[in-house]
C-alpha cells in the first residue's frame, strides 16, 4: 500500500483518528486542546463518517466536568466515546475519570498537556495536568511528536478496548499540538485492522440496557469496598502487555515500532536519561550527536507511564548504565522528587531486587526538572544534563533552562552549543498577526511537505496582546524527519515582515554566518542602508549576511491585498531560499492559493495570484558595505519613567528578554504592581484621532467608547494652562456647572490602537465640511512628538474633584479618570469600554475577581496590567481565580470585607472612650452612597488611623489592620458569557441567590471569544460558531430573566453603543444596590465577523437593539419595595427586522453562504424569538405591582431610560 503523507498539526492528527474510531465526543473548549473538538464538530457538520459509516455525535457541554459526565454516560450505555481537554479542564474531569476507570470502561481521553495555574495561569505546555491524573486508574500514554500523536491515538484506542483500562493519551501542549509537521497518515484501513470489532461488541454487551438490567455505581461500606477495589488488579497487570501488543500490531501494519520504554543510544551507554513527551525527540537526537563524537549516552523514552511496567523499564536499560537522570516536566513542591523520578526510583529498587533486565547495580539516579510552561528544552540543555551526571559533584536535584539564583538548583549550559544538521534549512519570520505571515508559512510548509521529498516542520510563537500582535514563525525543512522540538535559534533565513520590528527585536542574532536577511521596507535597495539603525547594520556586516529588500506594502496595495503581505513575502522566501526551483515554487504557491482561497471566491484568488506575479520584480539585493555608517540607535522599548524595579523585570519581559530573568527577579506569590501598561509605548496606530475643539459639543461619547482609554476628558481651572505646550488645545467648558473652567479632550498618541470607534460615535459634524467631525483621524507619525508632550501635560492637569461630577450624565461622568488603560485587548474591543466605565465610577475602592478569558488576559497577562491608580494611589485590585468560580470568588471578597467591616465597627465601639463619640458615630453610621459620603468616611478613617498610631493594645492593633474595611468597597466579578452562561452558571446562580452585595458584570460576546469563538449558551440562534459550524440551532439563554425570578437581584441588560447613559445608569444602580447585581453587557467582538477596523462596533450594538435582538432593561428590586414595577424596559419596540442585524454580521451571514436553507429557517425563528421576547418583557414591564388584581395595561412602545 502506498504511503500517504500529510502536513498537519498534532491536534488535527489526533482528532483525525479519534473521530474515526468513535461514535460520541463530549467536548468543551480549552487551550490548547480546543482544535480537536473543533475538527470533530466541523467534520460532523460536513457529514464525515467514522470507520463504521456513521456520523459521530459531537456534544458540547457547559464545562469539562459536564463533558466528562456526558462521556461517562455515553460509555455506560455502550457508545465508543472520547473527549479532549487540557489543564484545568482535565482537573474538572478527574472525578469522572476515577469512576470510568473504576468501572473498567474503555475510552481514550486525548490531552494536550498544559500547565496548571498556580502563582499564575499559563496556557503553555508541561505535564503538571496529566501527572495529576496519575491516580485515576487511567493508563497514561505519552506521544512525543505529531506522528506519534496520530499513531498513539490509534494504539490507545486498540489497547483500551482489549485491556478495559481507559487511556489518557497525552502530547505536549503547543509544542506537539500546534506543531505543523509532515507525517505519514494512518489510513482508515489500518484503523480497521487495529480495532477488534469483537471488543467493540463486548463493550456494548457490558452497557447499561433495560433488556438486561444491571446496577453500577453502588455505595459500599468498610466491609467490602477494599476487597472490591482490589478486584481490578489483573486488568492493570495485563494492561502494559496489551498496550505493547497493540504497538506491535501497529508496527506490523505501518513499520513504526514503539515500545513502552523505548531505549535509544549506545548499547553500552553509561550516562542515560529518562524522559517523556516532546523532549524525547530532542534528547534522542542529542544523544545520537554526542555518540557520534564517541560518547556513551542513552535515552529511555517513556511511552506508557501508567501502569508502570517495572520489568519493561529495567529491560530497557543498558547493563552499563551508571547514571540515570530522570527528567520531569512538572513541579510538585514539597515532594522528595517529581513523579517520574519517584517512580523510576521505586522501579529500580524493586526491579533490581527481582533481577529484571541486565543491569546489576543501582545507578546514580538524578532528578531534573525542565520545560515548565513550554520553557525551551534544547540540545544544549540536554548536554548540560549529561555533563551534570558525570560531574565530580553533580546536582542531584536540578532544574535546567532557567537561572535559579535563589535556591541555586539550575544547571548552567552553553546556549551556543547546537546540533542542527547542515542538511536542514531553517527559517525565521517576524510578522504581524494581521499581515497573514503565519498562514502563509503554514502554506509554505504544506508546499514543501506535500510537493517535495522533504520533511517540514513549523512552529509558531504568538503574542499575548491581541492588538498589534507579533508572530514569529519557526520553519525547518530537510530530507529526514525533523526531531527538533525546540525553537529555531540558528537560522539560514530571517525575514522581517514589518520594518518597525527592526527597532524591537534583534533578528540578526539567530542568523547564521552568510545567511539571508529579507526586509519588507518602503525604502529601495539604494536608500535602505542609511535608514537602518546602527546595531542592524553591524549585525548584517558581522554575519556577512545576504541582504534583500522588498516594498511588500506597495505590491500589496497595487494588487488589492491591503495590509496582507503574506503571499508576497512567501514568494520572496521561496525565491531566496532555493528550497524549490523558482518557477516550480511559484506554480506551487499559486496552486496553494487556489486551494486555500478558492472556496472564498474568485476575486480573492485573483488578487493573491496577482501579488505573487508582481513580487519578484520588486525584490532587490542590497550590497552590504564593510562599515556601519548609521548613528541611530535602537529606542528604549519601555518607558524610562517606570520605577526601576518595574523597568528591570516587567520592562525586560516587554523587551523580549524575559528568558534571561533569574528566579530572584520574581515575587514568590505572583504579586505584581498595577499601573504598568502606561510604560509600554506600543505606537500601533497608523492614524490617531485629533480633536477639533471648535466643533466639539463635549458629549463625552468618544472618551466613553475608547476601548484603550486613550481619549481622555478633563475640566480644570484656566490657571492650570500655564506652561502648556504650544499645540495643547483647550476651550471653555460647556456644562453650566463648570462655567468659567477649561475643557480638553486629549489623545494618548502612542497608546491609541487606531480603532476609529471614537470617530464613528462622534455626533458633532463640522458645519462647513460635514465629512469632518469633532474628532478625526490623522497620520500618527507627525503627531507623535507634539502629542506626546501634550499628553504628558494633560496628565499633569488636576483631576476634577469627584464630588463636583454629576455621574449620571455621560458628558460630566467622562471626566472621571479611568483606572483601566492601554490594555492588550483587540483594537476596537467591545468589552473594555464597560470595564473602563466601571473603574471610572468605582475604581478607587474596587476589588475585582476576573473569570479566565479575554478579560483576564488583557487584564493580567504579564508583563503589564491596564489596571491603574488615581492621584492618591488608589485603584482596582485584581485577581483571577479560575474560569468557573468567579462569582464565588467575588462572594468570598464580599463576605470577608463585610466581616472585617463588622469587626472594625465592633472595635471602634469598644474603643469609643479613646476615639471620641463623634468619630465613632461618624465611622459606624457613615452614609457611603455617593462620592461625598465616601470622601468623608475616608477622612474619618484617616483620623482614626492617626489616633490609633502608637497605641499598643491588642484592640488598637487589630483595628488598624481592619480600619480600611470601614470604607465601603465595591466588589465585582468580571467575565464573559462562557463563564456566566455555562461553566460558572451554577456558582453565579448561587451567588445571586445569596443576597450578598456582589456585582457581576457579564461581557456578553455570545461566544467563547478568548479560545477562538466556540458557541456558548449565549450564542444566538443562527450564528455560526465553532462547535456550531452548522449554525446554532437553539435560542439564546435568557440569563437576565432567570436572575429576575429571584426577585431580589438587580438585573440590567445594557448595550453602550445603543444607549450609553443607560449603561452608565445601570452601573450606578447596580453598585448602589445593597444586594446582588447582574449586568449583562452586549459586547461586540472580533468573533462576530464585523469590520472592527472601521470602528463599527458600537453601530452593531445599536442595530442589535433597534432590531429587538437585544433588549435594554433594568430590574431593580428597590422599585418593588416602593410598590412600583421593578422592571423598566428601556428599549423601544423594534424598528428594524432581525435579519437587518443578522446580515450585517459575518457570524450569521456566512450561514447564508454555507447553508442557505438552514439560514432561512433559523433567521425566521430568530425573528420569532425577538418578537416573543419583546412581548413577554413588555407584558412584565407593564404589570402593576403584584396583588392589586388589575389587568395589565397595554405594552408600552418605548420606555426611555431615566437620565
Amino acid at each position, binding site marked *: 500500500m502506498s504511503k500517504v503523507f500529510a502536513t498537519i498539526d498534532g491536534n488535527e492528527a489526533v482528532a483525525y483518528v479519534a473521530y474515526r474510531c468513535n461514535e460520541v465526543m463530549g467536548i468543551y473548549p480549552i*487551550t*490548547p486542546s480546543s*482544535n480537536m473538538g*473543533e475538527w470533530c*464538530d*466541523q467534520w460532523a*457538520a*460536513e457529514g464525515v463518517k467514522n470507520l463504521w459509516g456513521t456520523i459521530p455525535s459531537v456534544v458540547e457541554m457547559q464545562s469539562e466536568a459536564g463533558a466528562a459526565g456526558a462521556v461517562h454516560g455515553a460509555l455506560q450505555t455502550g457508545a465508543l466515546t472520547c473527549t479532549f481537554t487540557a489543564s484545568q479542564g482535565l482537573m474538572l474531569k478527574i472525578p469522572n475519570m476515577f469512576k470510568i476507570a473504576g468501572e473498567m470502561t474503555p475510552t481514550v481521553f486525548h490531552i494536550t498537556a498544559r500547565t496548571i495555574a498556580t502563582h499564575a495561569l499559563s*496556557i503553555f505546555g508541561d505535564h503538571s495536568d496529566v501527572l495529576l491524573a496519575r491516580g485515576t486508574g487511567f493508563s497514561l500514554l505519552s506521544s512525543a511528536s505529531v506522528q506519534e500523536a496520530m499513531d498513539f491515538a490509534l494504539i490507545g484506542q486498540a489497547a483500551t478496548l482489549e485491556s478495559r483500562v481507559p487511556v489518557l493519551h497525552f502530547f505536549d501542549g*503547543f509544542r506537539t499540538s*500546534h506543531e505543523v509537521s509532515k507525517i505519514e497518515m494512518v489510513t482508515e484501513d489500518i484503523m480497521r485492522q487495529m480495532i477488534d470489532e469483537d471488543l467493540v461488541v463486548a463493550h456494548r454487551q457490558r452497557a447499561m440496557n433495560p433488556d438486561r438490567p444491571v446496577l453500577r455505581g453502588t455505595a459500599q461500606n468498610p466491609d467490602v469496598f477494599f476487597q472490591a477495589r482490589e478486584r481490578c488488579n489483573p486488568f492493570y497487570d495485563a494492561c502494559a502487555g496489551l498496550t505493547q501488543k497493540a504497538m506491535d500490531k501497529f508496527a506490523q501494519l505501518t513499520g513504526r515500532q514503539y515500545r513502552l520504554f523505548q531505549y535509544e543510544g549506545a548499547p553500552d551507554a553509561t550516562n542515560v536519561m529518562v524522559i517523556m513527551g516532546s523532549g524525547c525527540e530532542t534528547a534522542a537526537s542529542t544523544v545520537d550527536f554526542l555518540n557520534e563524537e564517541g560518547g556513551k549516552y542513552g535515552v529511555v523514552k517513556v511511552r506508557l507511564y501508567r501502569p508502570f511496567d517495572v520489568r519493561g523499564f529495567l529491560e530497557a536499560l543498558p547493563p552499563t548504565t551508571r547514571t540515570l537522570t530522570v527528567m520531569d516536566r512538572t513541579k510538585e513542591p514539597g515532594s522528595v522528587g517529581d513523579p517520574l523520578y519517584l517512580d523510576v526510583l521505586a522501579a529500580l529498587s524493586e526491579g533490581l531486587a527481582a533481577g529484571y533486565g541486565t543491569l546489576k547495580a543501582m545507578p546514580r539516579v538524578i532528578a531534573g526538572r525542565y520545560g515548565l510552561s513550554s520553557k525551551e528544552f534544547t540540545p544544549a540543555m540536554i548536554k548540560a544534563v549529561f555533563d551534570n551526571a558525570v560531574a565530580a559533584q553533580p546536582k542531584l536535584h536540578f532544574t535546567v533552562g532557567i537561572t535559579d539564583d535563589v535556591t541555586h538548583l539550575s544547571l548552567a549550559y552553553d546556549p551556543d552549543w547546537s546540533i542542527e544538521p547542515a542538511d536542514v534549512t531553517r527559517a525565521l519570520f517576524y510578522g504581524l*498577526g*494581521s499581515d*497573514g*505571515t*503565519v*498562514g502563509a508559512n503554514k502554506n509554505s510548509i504544506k508546499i514543501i511537505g506535500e510537493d517535495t521529498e522533504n520533511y517540514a516542520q513549523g512552529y*509558531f510563537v*504568538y503574542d*499575548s*496582546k*491581541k492588538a498589534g*500582535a507579533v*508572530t514569529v514563525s519557526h520553519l525547518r525543512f530537510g530530507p529526514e524527519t525533523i526531531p527538533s522540538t525546540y525553537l529555531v535559534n540558528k537560522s539560514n533565513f530571517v525575514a522581517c515582515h514589518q520594518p518597525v520590528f527592526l527597532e524591537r527585536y534583534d533578528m540578526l542574532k539567530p542568523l547564521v554566518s552568510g545567511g539571508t536577511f529579507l526586509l519588507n521596507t518602503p525604502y529601495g535597495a539604494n536608500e535602505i542602508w542609511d535608514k537602518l539603525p546602527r546595531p542592524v547594520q553591524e549585525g548584517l556586516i558581522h554575519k556577512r549576511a545576504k541582504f534583500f529588500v522588498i516594498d511588500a506594502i506597495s505590491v500589496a496595495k497595487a494588487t*488589492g491585498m491591503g495590509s*496582507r503581505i503574506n503571499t508576497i513575502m512567501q514568494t520572496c522566501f521561496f525565491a531566496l531560499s532555493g528550497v524549490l526551483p523558482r518557477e516550480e515554487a511559484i506554480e506551487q504557491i499559486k496552486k496553494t492559493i487556489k486551494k486555500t*482561497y478558492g*472556496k*472564498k*471566491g*474568485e*476575486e*480573492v484568488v485573483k*488578487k493573491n495570484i496577482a501579488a505573487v506575479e508582481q513580487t519578484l520584480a520588486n525584490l532587490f539585493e542590497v550590497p552590504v558595505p564593510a562599515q556601519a555608517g548609521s548613528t541611530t540607535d535602537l529606542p528604549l522599548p519601555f518607558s524610562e519613567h517606570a520605577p526601576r524595579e518595574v523597568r528591570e523585570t516587567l520592562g525586560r519581559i516587554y523587551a523580549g528578554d524575559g528568558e534571561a530573568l533569574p528566579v530572584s527577579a520574581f515575587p514568590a506569590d505572583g504579586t505584581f504592581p498595577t499601573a504598568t501598561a502606561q510604560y509600554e509605548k506600543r505606537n500601533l496606530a497608523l492614524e490617531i484621532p485629533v480633536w477639533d475643539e471648535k466643533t466639539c459639543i463635549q458629549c463625552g461619547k468618544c472618551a466613553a467608547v475608547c476601548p484603550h482609554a486613550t481619549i481622555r476628558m478633563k475640566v480644570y481651572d484656566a490657571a492650570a494652562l500655564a506652561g502648556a505646550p504650544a499645540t495643547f488645545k483647550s476651550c471653555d467648558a460647556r456644562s453650566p456647572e463648570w462655567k468659567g473652567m477649561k475643557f480638553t479632550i486629549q489623545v494618548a498618541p502612542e497608546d491609541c490602537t487606531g480603532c476609529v470607534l471614537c470617530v464613528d460615535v462622534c455626533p458633532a*459634524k463640522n458645519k462647513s465640511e*460635514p465629512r469632518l467631525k469633532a474628532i478625526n483621524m490623522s497620520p500618527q507619525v507627525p503627531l507623535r512628538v507634539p502629542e506626546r508632550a501634550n499628553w504628558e501635560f494633560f496628565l499633569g492637569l488636576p483631576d476634577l474633584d469627584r464630588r463636583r461630577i454629576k455621574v449620571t450624565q455621560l458628558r460630566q461622568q467622562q471626566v472621571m479618570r479611568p483606572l483601566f488603560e492601554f490594555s492588550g485587548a*483587540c483594537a476596537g474591543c467591545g468589552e473594555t469600554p464597560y470595564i473602563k466605565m466601571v473603574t471610572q465610577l468605582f475604581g478607587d475602592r474596587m476589588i475585582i475577581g476576573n473569570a479566565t478569558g479575554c478579560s483576564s*488576559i488583557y487584564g493580567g497577562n504579564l508583563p503589564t496590567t491596564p489596571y491603574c491608580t488615581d492621584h492618591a494611589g488608589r485603584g482596582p485590585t485584581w485577581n483571577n481565580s479560575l474560569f468557573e468560580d468567579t462569582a464565588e470568588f467575588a462572594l468570598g471578597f464580599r463576605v470577608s470585607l463585610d466581616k472585617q467591616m463588622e469587626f472594625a465597627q465592633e472595635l471602634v465601639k469598644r474603643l469609643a472612650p479613646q476615639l471620641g463619640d463623634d468619630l465613632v458615630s461618624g465611622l459606624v453610621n457613615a452614609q457611603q452612597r455617593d462620592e461625598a459620603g465616601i470622601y468623608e468616611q475616608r477622612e474619618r478613617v484617616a483620623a482614626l488611623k492617626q489616633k490609633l498610631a502608637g497605641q499598643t493594645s491588642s484592640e488598637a492593633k487589630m483595628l488598624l489592620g481592619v480600619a480600611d474595611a470601614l470604607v465601603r468597597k465595591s466588589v465585582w466579578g468580571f467575565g464573559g458569557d462562557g463563564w456566566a452562561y455555562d461553566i460558572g452558571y451554577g456558582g453565579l446562580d448561587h451567588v445571586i441567590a445569596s443576597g450578598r452585595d456582589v456585582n457581576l458584570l457579564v461581557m456578553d460576546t455570545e461566544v467563547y*471569544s*478568548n*479560545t*477562538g*469563538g466556540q458557541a456558548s449558551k449565549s450564542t444566538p440562534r443562527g450564528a*455560526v*460558531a*465553532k462547535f*456550531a*459550524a452548522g449554525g446554532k440551532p437553539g435560542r439564546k439563554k435568557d440569563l437576565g430573566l432567570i436572575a429576575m425570578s429571584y426577585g431580589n437581584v438587580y438585573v440590567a441588560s445594557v448595550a453602550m453603543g445603543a444607549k450609553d447613559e443607560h449603561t452608565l445608569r445601570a452601573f450606578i444602580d447596580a453598585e448602589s444596590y445593597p444586594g446582588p447585581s447582574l449586568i449583562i453587557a452586549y459586547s461586540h467582538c*472580533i*468573533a462576530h*465577523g*464585523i*469590520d*472592527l477596523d472601521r470602528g463599527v462596533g458600537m453601530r452593531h450594538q445599536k442595530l442589535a437593539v433597534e432590531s429587538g435582538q437585544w433588549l435594554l432593561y433594568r430590574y431593580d428590586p428597590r422599585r418593588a419595595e416602593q410598590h412600583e414595577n421593578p422592571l423598566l424596559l428601556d428599549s423601544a419596540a423594534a424598528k428594524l427586522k432581525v435579519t437587518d442585524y443578522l446580515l450585517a454580521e*459575518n*457570524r450569521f451571514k*456566512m450561514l447564508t*453562504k*454555507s447553508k*442557505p436553507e438552514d439560514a432561512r429557517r433559523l433567521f425566521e425563528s430568530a425573528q420569532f424569538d425577538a418578537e416573543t421576547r419583546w412581548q413577554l418583557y413588555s407584558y412584565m414591564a407593564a404589570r402593576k405591582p403584584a396583588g392589586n388584581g388589575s389587568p395589565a395595561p397595554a405594552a408600552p412602545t418605548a420606555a426611555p431610560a431615566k437620565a
Partner: protein
Amino acid sequence: MDLSTTYLGLKLRSPLMPSACPLTRDLDEIKRAEDAGAGAIVLPSVFEEQLRRESEELDAMLEKGTESYAESLSYFPQVGEFRLGPDDYLEHIGRAKRAVRIPVIASINGASVGGWTEYAKKIEQAGADALELNIYYIPTDLDLPGTAVEATYLDILKSVKQAVRLPVSVKLSPFFSNMAHMARQLDTAGADGLVLFNRFYQPDIDLENLEVEHSILLSTPQARRLPLRWVAILFGKVKASLAATSGIHTAHDAIKILMAGADVTMLCSVLLRKGMTHIAVIEQEMKRWLEEHEYESVAQMKGSMSQEKCPDPTAFERAQYMRIISTWKPA
C-alpha cells in the same frame, strides 16, 4: 386580441413584462407574473461589484484576527464550501426556468469589461433565455472624454457577445451627447435589444444628519416621456429590439409606448406598488382599449406613432421644444 410580440428574437404572448426588479427575486412572484400574463420576466440584476465585494468581505471577515494570538488562531469554523459569487443567482435562473414557461431573461449590472464575460457564460449555462446587460455607469472623472465612455459600453457588449450565443440586450442611460448615435453603435456592435432607459437613482441630502441620502424613489408616469421619445426616434432605424422602461404604469402608458415603437414594455414601480397580479389588470385595460378602438393586434399598432410614421416627425425634436416655450402661458 393578439397581444403577441417578438423581443430579442423570442416570441412573447404579450408585450407586458416585469423589468429587473426586486420582485423577480422571488420564485412565487415569478409564477405570479406568468399567471398574470407576463410575456417574459427579467430577473433582478446580479451586481458585478457585489459579487467581487462579497468574496473579498467573506475572506476579510474570516481572516480578521486570525493567527495572532495563541488561544484563538481563528474565530470561525472552517466551512468546506461557500456558495458565493453568482452561485445563488445561477441557481435562481435554473429554478425560475423550471417554474415557468415564459422566457427568463437574466441581468448583470456592472461597469467594467473584466467580470462580464465570465458571468455571462455561467448565466448561459444556467439556462437563461437571454441576457440583459445593465450598464450602470456614472462617469465622474473630469479627464474622461465621452468617446471613452461610449467605447466602454461597446467593449462590454462586444466581449459578451463573443462569449455567449444568447440574445443580449443593453440597458443604458439616456446621458449620451448623441443618444441616437450611441444606439446605432450598439446596434452595429451586435446588441439584440436596447432597453430604454436605466433610471439612475439620484442622491438627496438629509438636512438633520448632514448626510447624502440614497433612498429609492419609485417612478412617476412623467418619467415615461423620456423612453417614449427615444423609442419613437429609434424605431425602424435599428435592428435591435426596443424595450421601454420607466414610468409605464397604466394601459394607456403601455399603448403609447408600443405605438412609439417598443417591442415590449417593462414594468417595475407599478408592480412594486400594486403587486405582480397588476399585469393582468393592465392587460385587461389594454385589450379593452384596443378592442374599443378596433385594433386587431399589438403588432398592428407597434411603431404607429414613431417618428417615422407619426403625423408630425418634428414633434420629437428641438423644434417642438421651441413651440412649447413660445406658447406657454402662466395659469
